[in-house]
């Protein structure tokens, strides 16, 4: 394709948008609404995921050993734990360390009365997992090992955490799918009107010997431009309000500050921007190419 043809096609695409302003605006608005909701759910999802991940990282399984176990056996158990795929990190806590941390946490200055370590048998491994859902498998493995007295599992269950994630994901997918269909339908309508407005011109083009590509390209460009604009608007809006919303939540519910860490606007947008753009342009492309194929039998 010649450069002049390329620019001609782009120019005609832009002219098409302005020729039927209202339909173009309606299409842009729908895509914007669609991608705004997408961006909203995406941001929420990213934050929930990040919060869940933080929570999961704190989830650990603790194993206590049989009384009088040898240091040798403890090391062997440690090696076996390291081999497990579920394990991301393992920390050995000796009896003395366990007592120290207990004192610090619960007794403070009242601990002076103890001369011996009351937690003599409390040496343990704290095991952190790659994924909380792996907890049951790991626990049953640990319980089967020789020299293990007790396995303490975490209170947080895998099911509840991944359940929230899945619910949000499904609801977003559902809503976005509906909006996608509406967007494609509206773009298709806009392009159909564009085609009927230019029917005369298209007929002349065909008589003069325009290729299918040359006749169709401006309409596809029109759809893609509408998609691009429809993607950029919600991205801009979400960018502006994202930080404000987080600030508001933090100031209103200051207790949350300790538990929740929100994902920074930049790390959300490094993914949301390209995804939204691709979706916007994709919707525009799909909507127009379907219509052009249907209505432009050239």
């Amino acid at each position, binding site marked *: *394709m*010649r450069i*002049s*043809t390329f620019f*001609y096609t782009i120019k005609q695409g832009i002219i098409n948008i302005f020729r039927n302003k209202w339909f173009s605006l309606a299409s842009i608005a729908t895509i914007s609404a669609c991608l705004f909701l997408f961006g909203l759910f995406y941001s929420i999802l990213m934050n929930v995921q990040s919060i869940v991940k933080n929570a999961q990282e704190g989830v650990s399984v603790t194993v206590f050993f049989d009384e009088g176990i040898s240091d040798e056996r403890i090391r062997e158990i440690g090696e076996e734990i390291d081999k497990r795929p579920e394990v991301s990190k393992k920390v050995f806590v000796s009896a003395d360390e366990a007592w120290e941390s207990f004192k610090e946490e619960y007794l403070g200055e009242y601990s002076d009365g103890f001369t011996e370590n009351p937690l003599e048998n409390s040496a343990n491994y704290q095991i952190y997992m790659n994924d909380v859902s792996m907890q049951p498998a790991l626990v049953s493995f640990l319980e089967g090992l020789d020299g293990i007295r007790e396995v303490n599992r975490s209170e947080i269950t895998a099911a509840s955490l991944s359940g929230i994630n899945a619910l949000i994901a499904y609801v977003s997918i559902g809503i976005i799918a509906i909006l996608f269909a509406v967007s494609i339908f509206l773009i298709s309508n806009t392009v159909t009107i564009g085609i009927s407005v230019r029917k*005369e*011109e298209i*007929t*002349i*083009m*065909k*008589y*003069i*010997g*325009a*290729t*299918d590509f*040359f006749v169709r390209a401006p309409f596809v460009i029109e759809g893609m431009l509408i998609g691009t604009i429809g993607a950029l608007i919600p991205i801009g809006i979400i960018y502006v309000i994202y930080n404000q919303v987080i600030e508001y939540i933090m100031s209103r519910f200051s207790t949350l500050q300790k538990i929740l860490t929100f994902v920074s606007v930049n790390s959300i947008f490094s993914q949301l921007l390209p995804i939204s753009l691709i979706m916007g342009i994709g919707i525009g492309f799909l909507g127009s190419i379907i219509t052009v194929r249907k209505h432009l039998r050239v």
Partner: protein
Amino acid sequence: MAKELRGRKKKNISGDEIITMNNVSKAYATGAPALNGVDLHIKKGEFVFIVGDSGSGKSTLIKLLLRELVPTSGEINVMGYDLIRIRHRKIPKFRRNLGIVFQDFRLLKDRNVYENVAFAQRIIQMPGKEIKRNVPSILATVGLAGKYKAKPRQLSGGEQQRVAIARALVNRPSILLADEPTGNLDPKNSWEIMKLLEQINENGTTVLVVTHNREIVNAMQKRVITMKKGVVVSDEEKGGYIDDED
């Protein structure tokens, strides 16, 4: 059947024939056939009138030559393109060798004279530099050099038809098809358009004019093909307009 037709095609196409129709029929879903066994042989550089009343099959003939329609049976060859077997994606390339002028001009109303003509060049993806050279030159040929900025509604009918002719010629077609080019014009403008078409023909372009205009046909003394009810009823060199006896 196909074999037989192919053989006939070879036999009937001589070297300087630019349009060949052999036994072409076209039937639509309803009613009598629009064309019935038409044979047409036009040589390079000819000026031919096709005359006939409405319903005679002229429009169908033009549509077949443009490959807008495919005949029900028969063979059509235009400039070496077999219009029965031509592939869909080759049609644009074929049409670039044809210039077409309509009764209602079919100009783009939102664009000026220059843009209307340049449009034809853009479609065939002519480089911008060439367009800037070719368009003024062709506008001068049709006598509209001074009006390149005017919009179609600011022009007279005759001037609009000149723009349409310029648009049809700018891509240097081998054949110019004019479908009732004077149908919407007064006698003076009709004559001017016909003189222009004659001049174009003298420069080497084959010209086919479908018309109702008796005086012009009779005065110009060109080859006249008369059609009636889908059949060629007469084909005369230096012919005249044959009146319908019905």
